């Protein structure tokens, strides 16, 4: 094979990326067009009506945008008290030890469990628990989905945060110790501020994951199409409404679901982009 052919071959393979991504956007935009045209872009995003009675079809994305934001935010809140200790355990307290590598293997395995199994476990273990504790009568809902979602994003947030915590220069830590600080004080005053932007960006990427998570949420959120009025009520996220109704949808409803997909695609793309840029910056500094 000569060099020219080789270069062409690599280039053609690399073209796969723009083709696939362009195709994704093109397919979403063309099929979402009908819904946006029919309801108007902002009207579609801010309407909370989702009814498919023939002749009086009304579709709006607000309940699902709300559902997505609620589950993501709650999952983040539940995730922090666990992912931060794991990051400190692996990246600072037990850095480089066997114990740390055992814990990171555990979190790696957690990250490897398919989301459908998380959903199944949530459905048969967590949901009855929520019912038994009288938190909500049906067991499923925003809260249940968020709890499982939190477990799912802990590994991502933790392993990335740990990476940044590990990178805090030893010079700085020793400098702080030499002034008489305890380990906890070094962590609070040196490690967190120095690794802060990196830790922050790892949570942004965790949010990116939670936003688009589909199966777990679909199985646990309760699948109702109204705006959830509390964290224990049922609802739907953008991903779960698609998973739920795409198979039976046609025409305007089909287009509306694609439109929701398009919005979700852009939200996750923007969040991921912000996260990646922040991580690049944090790695350089």
């Amino acid at each position, binding site marked *: 094979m000569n060099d020219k052919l080789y270069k062409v071959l690599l280039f053609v393979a690399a073209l796969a990326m723009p083709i696939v991504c362009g195709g994704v956007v093109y397919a979403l935009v063309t099929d979402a067009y009908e819904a946006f045209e029919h309801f108007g872009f902002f009207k579609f995003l801010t309407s909370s009506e989702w009814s498919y009675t023939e002749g009086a079809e009304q579709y709006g994305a607000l309940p699902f945008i709300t559902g997505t934001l609620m589950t993501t935010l709650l999952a983040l809140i539940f995730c922090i008290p666990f992912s931060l200790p794991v990051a400190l355990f692996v990246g600072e307290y037990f850095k480089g030890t066997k114990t740390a590598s055992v814990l990171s293997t555990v979190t790696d395995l957690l990250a490897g469990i398919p989301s459908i199994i998380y959903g199944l476990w949530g459905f048969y273990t967590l949901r009855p628990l929520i019912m038994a504790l009288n938190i909500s009568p049906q067991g499923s809902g925003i809260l249940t989905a968020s709890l499982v979602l939190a477990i799912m994003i802990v590994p991502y947030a933790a392993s990335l945060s740990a990476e940044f915590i590990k990178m805090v*220069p030893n*010079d*700085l830590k*020793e*400098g*702080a*110790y*030499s*002034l*008489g*600080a*305890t380990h906890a*004080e*070094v962590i609070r*005053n*040196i490690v967190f*501020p*120095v690794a*802060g932007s990196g830790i922050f960006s790892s949570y942004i990427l965790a949010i990116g994951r939670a936003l688009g998570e589909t199966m777990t949420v679909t199985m646990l959120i309760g699948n109702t199409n109204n705006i959830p009025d509390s964290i224990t009520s049922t609802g739907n996220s953008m991903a779960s409404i698609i998973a739920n109704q795409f198979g039976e949808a046609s025409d305007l409803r089909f287009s509306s679901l694609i439109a929701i997909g398009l919005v979700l695609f852009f939200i996750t793309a923007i969040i991921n982009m912000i996260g990646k840029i922040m991580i690049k910056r944090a790695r350089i500094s």
Partner: protein
Amino acid sequence: MESITPILEFNKTCVSYTKQTMAVKYVSAAIERNTITAIMGPSGCGKSTLLRAVNLMHNLYPNIRVDGEILLNGENILSMEPIDVRRRVGMVFQRPAPFPTMSIYDNVLSGYALNGIRLSKTDKDETVERCLKSVALWDEVKDVLNKKGTFLSGGQQQRLCIARALAMKPDVLLMDEPTSALDPIATAHIEELMQELQKDVTILIVTHNMGQAMRISSKSMFMYLGELVEYGNTDAMFSNPSDERTKAYLTGKMG
């Protein structure tokens, strides 16, 4: 005669990184108050290891063992609480490392912040001014106190780190090759500064620069392979070393 107890005394101090090998072997020496003592020796001789033992830096690493005694004002620090010892024994490292997330002002006060000690605004201002003046940095930075410490030049950063250590009013200041990362002008600055500082604090400095040792110190130690070979007045050691190994090092035949 002044106080009989030396401010710092090594008594058969040993440091080992692994079970088999000792990096510092049975060092015994008494350091006098308000002096500058230089610790010299070829690389790997254990001079930094000995220095780091004085503020219990080795406690941070579970594999390292320190045996024997190190007495600070007659008290064995090896049985004391590390955070207590470290407040009384300041340290300046080889590479200047001001805390990058703190301003120059906060860097000087970082010891207090780290120790959870609250100061009034006037106390803070006073401490910052006093410490920065004592390291001759005040005039250069007084208008940019809120800038990050990492904007300063290497020599300025190192002086800031000295100021940071001095702010805690330590009895002893340990300096681990503090000028090896600096240019000659910044080095001269810091050497001058040390002469000033010895009025208030006892300085122990590790250096591999013989000229520096001669210029600044009144006492010198020569270490070789973990042992303290020779300890005495700097002038005497340089003009008439009593040990062959010291002689070989000082004449450039070793190291």
